[in-house]
C-alpha cells in the first residue's frame, strides 16, 4: 500500500486470468483440461477476494476467509470431478466431452 500497486492492478490481473480460464474452458475437449481451466477461474476469483480484503476492508478478514472457503470448495469439486472422470473412463475408455452425453442413459 505504501507503493504504487493499487487494487486496479490486482483486478486487471485476475480479470485476465479469469478470461484465459474461460478461453480454455471453451476450446478444450479433454475433461481433465477443462477441469484445469475451472481451477484457473477459481484461482483468479481468489486473487480478487484477497485484493478487496487488503485494499478496501483491511479491518475485516472477510475476503481472506472467502478465499479459504473457495479453496476448500475447489478441493472437493476436484475430488468429485475426478471420481466421475475415472468411472467414465472405465465405461468409455476415453474422456472427451463429446462422449459424455452417454451418461444420461
Amino acid at each position: 500500500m505504501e507503493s504504487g500497486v493499487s487494487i486496479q492492478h490486482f483486478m486487471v490481473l485476475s480479470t485476465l486470468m479469469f478470461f484465459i480460464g474461460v478461453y480454455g474452458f471453451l476450446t478444450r475437449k479433454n475433461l481433465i483440461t477443462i477441469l484445469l481451466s475451472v481451477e484457473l477461474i477459481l484461482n483468479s476469483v481468489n486473487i480478487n477476494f484477497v485484493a478487496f480484503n487488503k485494499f478496501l476492508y483491511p479491518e475485516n478478514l472477510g475476503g481472506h476467509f472467502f478465499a479459504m472457503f473457495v479453496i476448500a470448495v475447489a478441493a472437493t469439486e476436484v475430488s468429485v470431478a475426478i471420481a466421475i472422470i475415472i468411472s467414465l473412463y472405465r465405461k468409455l475408455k476415453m474422456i472427451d466431452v463429446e462422449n459424455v452425453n452417454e451418461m444420461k442413459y
Partner: protein
Amino acid sequence: MSETVFYILSGFILVFSILTVTSRKILRTAVYLLFVLLGTCGIYFAMDFNFLAAVQLTVYAGGIVVIIIFSIMLTSDLQDKLEAVQFRKIFFSLLAVLIGAVVCISTILNHNFPQVTDKVLDSSMRTIGLRLLSYNEGGFVLPFEIISILLLAAIIGSIMIAKRADSK
C-alpha cells in the same frame, strides 16, 4: 509490495496461464497450472496473507495438482498429443473472451475505488483462528462447519462414484 515484484509475479502467472490452456501435452498443462498456483501463492505472500499463502501451497499445489496428475496418468496416454482445436472454435472463443475482458477491464479502470489507508491489516495466525471460530460479528464459524460437512459429503460421494459397480 513493490511494483517490480508485482509485475514479475503477474507476468509469470499470465504466461503460465496461457500455456495451461494452450499446451497440447496433457501432463505439461498440469505442471503449468502448478506454476500458476505457485505464482498466486507468491502474490498472497507479498500482500501479507501468510496463512492463506500456506493454505494455497499445501491444498492447491500439494493436493489438487497431485490428484490431477494421478488422474491424468490413470486415464491418458502421456505420449499422445491432444488434438488441435479447429480454427473456427479458436476464433469465436477468442472473440467472446476479448469482448468480456475489454468490458470488465474498462469497468475496473473507470470505477473509483475508495481509498482506505488508516486501518492496518491484521492477518496473524491468532486473529485468523479467533475469527474462524467466533460466532459474533465478523466470525465465520457457520461456513467453517458447513465446509466440514461438505468435505465429508465429497469424500463419501467420490468413493461411491469411483468404486467399481460389480464390487458390492
